């Protein structure tokens, strides 16, 4: 079937092209991260201190508006941060801030983003579009949804991770994440294209169900997003260590890398948000998997190794979310749970599919 082969090789070439774009973008982000102005990188999320805000009030009158830092989240719920009373200031009525653009609390909402960073972002978008093309071509080559074996899963997971980064970058301006997300993405795609690669082929009957569209897409979406959350959690740990060392007046060591990152509290918030998005998606993936298992194998849950690890992953992430609401477990301990969850997810994806024989061993490797 020459047409299929054409699409197949087109898909492969596009994947390589997208990897090149991602790699260049990664270098751009890394350069901006190292040499660019800090405020351009982390416009909104970096908010450790109380900062006055511009908020529109009724036109005719003087308006008093204030906003304090948002470090108040803790187990006891509504809490007022101590010493925030001085944050109110008098401001003239101004334009209403839109989402993402100069949101309250920006350290430097007016500063232009760095050129380098803009270029890197543009390259990432190009790489992303080419990556989408690669996935679509693969679907044409195989005459089915392009997520039927591990090579294809991996490509899709990387695509979701890049998508998640782009969404975050647009909504919250987190370009500082660029290099740190693209590095694992490129490595991941490299691994997928070499070790896991298999030519396009139809699905085995066990996978041939519309549930594959639902369950697998959910699992891939959750995994790609968890990947970003894992990256942010690691950055948080690095930054927390840096802050501790600086506070203690000790040399920062390796943690000095974190000096250009947003505050640990801001990173912590971002990681929570990303994880809190991924977790329900993962929950849905597990439930959809159970429904599919019921249709395919006559039982919705059988403690197959894949199911068991999905469960472990789910429980660990549930632990992470719980830890965030339990005072004694916040911060670093919660972060370690988040990383553990990601480790469990990777075991689920790779070790189980390749190393363990079970109903889910369809890697094709």
């Amino acid at each position: 079937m020459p047409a299929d082969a054409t699409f197949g090789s087109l898909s492969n070439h596009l994947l390589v092209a997208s990897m090149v774009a991602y790699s260049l973008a990664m270098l751009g982000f890394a350069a901006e991260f190292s040499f660019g102005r800090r405020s351009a990188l982390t416009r909104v999320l970096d908010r450790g201190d109380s900062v006055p805000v511009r908020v529109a009030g009724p036109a005719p009158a003087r308006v008093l508006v204030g906003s304090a830092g948002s470090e108040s989240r803790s187990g006891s719920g509504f809490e007022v941060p101590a010493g925030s009373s001085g944050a109110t200031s008098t401001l003239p009525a101004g334009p209403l801030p839109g989402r993402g653009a100069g949101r309250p609390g920006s350290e430097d909402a007016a500063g232009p983003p760095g050129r380098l960073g803009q270029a890197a972002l543009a390259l990432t978008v190009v790489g992303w579009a080419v990556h989408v093309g690669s996935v679509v071509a693969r679907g044409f080559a195989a005459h089915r949804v392009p997520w039927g074996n591990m090579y294809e899963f991996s490509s899709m997971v990387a695509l979701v991770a890049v998508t998640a980064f782009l969404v975050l970058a647009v909504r919250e301006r987190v370009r500082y994440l660029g290099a740190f997300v693209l590095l694992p993405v490129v490595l991941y795609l490299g691994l997928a294209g070499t070790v896991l690669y298999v030519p396009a082929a139809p699905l085995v009957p066990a996978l041939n169900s519309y549930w594959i569209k639902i369950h697998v897409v959910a699992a891939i979406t959750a995994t790609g997003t968890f990947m970003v959350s894992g990256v942010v959690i690691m950055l948080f740990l690095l930054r927390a260590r840096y802050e501790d060392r600086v506070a203690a007046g000790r040399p920062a060591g390796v943690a000095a890398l974190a000096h250009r990152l947003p505050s640990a509290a801001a990173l912590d918030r971002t990681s929570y948000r990303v994880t809190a998005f991924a977790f329900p998606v993962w929950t849905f993936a597990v439930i959809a998997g159970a429904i599919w298992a019921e249709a395919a194998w006559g039982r919705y849950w059988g403690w197959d190794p894949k199911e068991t690890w999905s469960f472990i992953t789910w429980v660990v992430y549930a632990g992470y979310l719980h830890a965030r609401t339990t005072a004694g477990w916040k911060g670093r301990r919660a972060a370690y749970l988040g990383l553990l969850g990601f480790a469990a997810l990777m075991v689920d994806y790779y070790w189980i599919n390749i190393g363990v024989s079970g109903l889910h061993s369809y890697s094709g490797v």
Partner: protein
Amino acid sequence: MTELTTERELTTERERVAGGLSTQPSPPPPAPRRRRQPLAAARNAWRQLTSMRTALLLLFLLALAAVPGAALPQRGLNPVQVADYFAAHPRLAPVLDRFSLFDVFAAPWFAAVYLLLFVSLVGCLGPRIRLHARALRARPPAAPQHLERLPHTAGWETEAAPQAAVAAARALLRRRRWRTDVRAEAGGGASLGAEKGYLRETGNLLFHVALVGLLVGVAMGGLFGYKGTRLLVAGDEASGSFTNTVTQYDDFHPGRLFSGSRLAPFAFVLDRFTASYQPSGEARQFIADVRYLPSAQGAGGRWRPYRLQVNHPLTVDGASVYLIGHGYAVHVTVRGADGRVALDQPVPFLPKDQNFTSVGAIKVPDARPAQLGFSGFLTPTTVATPSGLASAYPGLRVPRLTLLAYRGDLGLDSGRPQSVYQLSTGGLRRIQSKTLAPGQTWRLPGGGSLTFAGIDQWITVQVGSDPGNTPALAASGAILLGLVLSLRVRRRRLWVRAVPASDGGTAGRTVVSVGGLARTDTDAFAEEFAELVAALGRSADNPHH
């Protein structure tokens, strides 16, 4: 925050749910717990168990407990692998086995962890539901003394009277589905407390309750369900039909409280099975064409056709029928030395590899004067290799049946159980071996013959009913809904205070101050707050719009 005692955890929890706020004087600490010792100890243990931290530890323990279940082979899933493990690690395996590590999910310690977790869950849900129910009926909290200490604040002056300004704010907030409460204040002022996002806690409670529901659904399946398998040969009247009664199963697993009356006696027949493969030999499609008769129809009822496929089970009378395996059966006609037909039927062979090299045994107890037995293998696409015949493809391209014939006593009357796929050769004498193509007849030395008439297909079906399915599915839906609500909805509070301006210069004017507080995701609330303040300002100036 420093170390929390469970007592304080509970108090803060109560505060949170009941609408307490740290800007208000906190409720008096509970009376010191100096009751009689054992009771106090029990209460304390219960508090410990139902605390969030214990829940967290148990959750973690549950994940840890599941790890050996994925890392080691499990009896319930793969008894053969467990046996292999025993053979490979003769010293270690019995030790592991003593700790139920090959039956993790049925192990007492695994049950202990999840039961403790669920006791903890139920224990902490009771008070939380009570408190939340109270919070739903409670008035939103009064405005704190110092609105300006809240994380989000705004203020302005207006010409409207304090009561009118507050009323306008109330109307606006109610339109936006905030819960509001107006209070008069000393000195002619008024204040408004408003709260929104109760759905967060509702969702969270729904999620936790649904977890318990899921466990109940799983337990129901384990107690009242059943599951069994049966092999059916396509197109064969005798071995291709099935009626749902216990004796018709090859293998039957009832739940602990299962009663036979739950089996609806529906029937079905396998007419044809088609398997297709990719050129590489990978499976492409399996289709089993069956006819079935629901039990309500009675014997004279109308048979309905169904295409049974992987991922497309047949549901009939509350039971589900799944296609779970397939293979080849060799149809043979065997005559004894006396010339009479002693066997004429398909004999299922078991597939042994990807290309469906299938092994089996043909037992002919009715052959006279002596019983006959054959053991051997079928190669669907036969190729010669240095080590003998093998199959190169799972489809029937060049099928050959290679058999070794025996004569003597099959040992079927000895009472010892035998596998249908193996001969027990103790009482048998080998005669000859031969490879046959379909249609060929093999005359045995010493009389008798075997005709390889053709090849049939067989499937194995799993029939089962799990009354926990629907509850478990409903609980899963509730889990998801509750989760989304509890992670997405923000609980937030807003206060508006309007007091007559005190300084002489602006007499007749009213000073309005607004304060806001969000429990989570304060970034997003900052936007909402700004937008609300703008709207409140407009409505205060034109209260009629």
